């Protein structure tokens, strides 16, 4: 049986200072858990966005809980720039480790395979590469002399946190086509999941459901969070709440607007 926690107990598993992997807006963002984390007041988080983020990273940054973010992009998409991220970049208080989407996937795959690094094409001559003192360029030992290729170190988050449609009582989590969530969990020391529901069947029992499962081997704890990705949309279960996102985008343009929005959001969710 999987350990089932309430939201506060779930986010208590995210220690201050943790390297926390979070998925992109389209892949299942644990917003309800994020509000619980914001209520608790986490400190010094180091976010790894897989490979991008939006509202979730922006709120954590706005609340001053993030010291570092490794990301390919933070944006509210149709609702514009992520305002707290953008403000923080100019303040110099947030360490931004710029990367590119396939480099995030490659780094997680390196951790998933238990290898120290992964090669990746592209990158040469970019300032993304120039900024990354932790990346290396080497000659491809299988190529012509002078065929340079970048090597990226494994990304090993402490915690992966995401939202999924369902889990079974054993802790198998149905992630469907969002296989980056599996890579993220494989790469991370521990994985915390919120789900819309716990189902009674064993998701691994039939190939039909097992094809979309992150197995219990990787899952530390599960919490039911109804509409847990709101106001972001979640697969075919609910669309994004565009009105709420627009309200956030407008409010978060200023420090004060953000503080008021946050207070309201945490009060309502409590």
């Amino acid at each position, binding site marked *: 049986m999987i350990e089932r926690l309430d939201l506060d107990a779930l986010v208590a598993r995210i220690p201050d200072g943790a390297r926390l992997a979070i998925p*992109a*807006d*389209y*892949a299942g963002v644990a917003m309800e858990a994020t509000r619980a984390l914001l209520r608790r007041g986490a400190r010094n988080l180091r976010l790894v966005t*897989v*490979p*991008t983020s939006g509202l979730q990273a922006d709120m954590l940054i706005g609340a001053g809980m993030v010291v570092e973010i490794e*990301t*390919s*992009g*933070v*944006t509210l*998409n*149709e*609702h514009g*720039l*992520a305002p707290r*991220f*953008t403000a923080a*970049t*100019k303040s*110099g208080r947030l360490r*931004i480790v*710029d*990367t*590119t*989407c*396939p*480099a995030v*996937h490659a780094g997680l*795959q390196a951790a998933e395979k238990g290898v120290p690094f992964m090669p*990746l*094409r*592209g*990158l*040469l*001559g*970019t*300032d*993304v*590469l120039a*900024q990354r003192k932790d990346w290396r360029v080497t000659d491809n030992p299988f*190529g012509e002399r*002078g*065929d*340079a*290729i970048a090597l990226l170190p494994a990304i090993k988050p402490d915690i992966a946190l995401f939202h999924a449609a369902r889990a079974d009582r054993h802790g198998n989590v149905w992630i469907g*086509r*969002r*296989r*980056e*969530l*599996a*890579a993220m969990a494989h790469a991370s020391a521990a994985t915390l999941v919120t789900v819309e529901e716990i189902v009674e069947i064993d998701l691994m029992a039939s190939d039909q459901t097992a094809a979309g499962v992150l197995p219990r081997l990787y899952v530390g704890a599960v919490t039911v969070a109804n509409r847990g990705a709101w106001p972001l949309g979640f*697969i*075919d279960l609910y*669309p*994004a709440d*565009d009105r709420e996102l627009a309200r956030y985008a407008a409010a978060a343009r200023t420090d004060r607007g953000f503080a008021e929005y946050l207070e309201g959001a945490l009060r309502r969710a409590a």
Partner: protein
Amino acid sequence: MTKASPRELLIAALARRIKGCRHVAVGNASPIPAAAALLARAQSNGAMIVYILGSRAHNPYGDGARELFDSAGQGRLDAFFLGGGEIDGQANVNLVTVGEHDRPQMRFPGSFGSAYLYFTVPKVILFREEHSRRVLVPRVSFVSAPGTSPPGVHRTGGPSALVTGRCIFSFDRARGRFALETIHPGQTALSVRAETGFDYDAPPQVSVTEAPGAGELRLIRGRISNEMAEAYPVFARREWPSHDAQAAGR
């Protein structure tokens, strides 16, 4: 039928450039390229495979977000649309910062997949609706993705054109230089030159970008506007307000 809007013109122009491609992808915050890809797909009789980031309906992958990049690495992605906070005359693209990286004057969302896809996708079409000296600069502050690479760099892709709200430039990879191809209705060779921060080639006489035909316009305002409502609801509502009821009814 009312005349094509400037954006509908862009949609049709972009769609024409990817005709015949088998596999086309559209990245973050790119409603006009997304509509163009959907238009080209609708015209391809089911042959074209289109990925639109953030869309559930237009996700042809089974391996998660990684598959876009992996398929490009395999040489299976024919065309990609890329925007830019800044774009310069060598087709370098900046999606990160203007000014110092750690204390920027301006911060964009981030490089997304550009630092990889620009190298691996044969036909990358740069698209930025805003055509101004703020965007089209002599030299980008930060190279998210370089327009060209020195010999020896493994590179199977790169920029083929730059489409803006004013004109279309083609890109000569060997020379690392843009050439004005067509200007949109209402523009002149001079107005384009005035608003462009980098130097480029231009023919003595430049023709006007072809407007969408009646069939294209019908497709855009019908099927494509409806498909767009899923991944780009805000854009679709703004661009095709009269189609709201129709889209909601689907």
